[in-house]
């Protein structure tokens, strides 16, 4: 998983009630509002997952917005983001085992599917706690850490997250 540090510019809206504060308090209100907006946006198709704001670089001149009296501040900041790449090798843990494959999770990515067809020589073993086994008795069960390759992914606009397709086809892939 590769994390990026990028600079972005967003607009932060401050309401009139917060504008009574001066100087440092106003800056704090802007920072807090930025962090809240950052946290609530979660992710975007272009940038990937919004992990954390690392620094506030500049706050531009505020512009009053029409009737409400809110003020819009353009804020330039640096932040950490994470986005999957096709062909990338990732580590994740087994979340759910189904007959046709396994659901993995890795960091902020919660929707990773590893189809049974892509699991080399592992096969499904039913039971109260189903697992995947291979001939060398290597087991894939809940919470097993697995190294896999990203076959592909897509952005789900409604859920604001990426959905990944994984494979174990390749050297040094599989449970660790």
């Amino acid at each position, binding site marked *: 998983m590769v994390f990026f540090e990028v600079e972005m510019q967003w607009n932060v809206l401050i309401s009139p009630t917060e504008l009574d504060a001066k100087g440092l308090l106003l800056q704090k209100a802007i920072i807090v509002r930025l962090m809240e907006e950052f*946290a609530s946006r979660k992710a975007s198709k272009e940038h990937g997952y919004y992990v954390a704001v690392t620094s506030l670089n500049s706050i531009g001149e505020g512009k009053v917005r029409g009737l409400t009296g809110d003020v819009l501040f353009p804020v330039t900041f640096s932040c950490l983001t994470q986005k999957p790449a096709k062909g990338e*090798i990732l580590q994740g843990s087994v979340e759910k085992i189904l007959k046709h494959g396994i659901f993995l999770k890795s960091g902020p990515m919660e929707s990773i599917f590893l189809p049974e067809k892509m699991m080399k020589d592992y096969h499904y073993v039913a039971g109260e706690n189903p697992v995947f086994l291979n001939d060398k008795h290597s087991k894939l069960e809940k919470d097993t850490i697995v190294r896999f390759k990203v076959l592909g992914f897509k952005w789900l606009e409604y859920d604001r997250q990426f959905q990944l397709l994984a494979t174990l086809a390749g050297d040094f892939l599989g449970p660790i």
Partner: protein
Amino acid sequence: MSGEEEENAAELKIGEEFLKAKCLMNCEVALILDRKYEQLQQLSDDPTNQISQVFEKSMQYVKRFSRYKNQDAVRQVREILSRYRLAEFELCVLGNLCPETVEEAIAMVPSIKSKGRIHEDDAIEKMLNDLSLIKKFE
């Protein structure tokens, strides 16, 4: 979209933004997120609005998958890997996955051997040895 169809991290065929961006390894991110977390606790009485699930899951993940924990070791890892002509992306994948053999390193980051790049096995082996030494003395 055609951009995504041609994309292949194994060949370092990744978007412009990936190639030009500053990349961070899990251990570097762990240090940053730890500091951020503390700052956020101090900044506000109720930081739950500023700490997203993405933040928490990322923090859990990088702490779990960081081979190097202390700041000096992390700096050394970056320093050692920077001596070799690697793209930021490749550097991070190597620093994260910590391959033990040259074979494994090439399997994890195939692009270090491709595209006419001069990364001899000897150089890769030396790099891996240097990395494992940091672990021993951390």
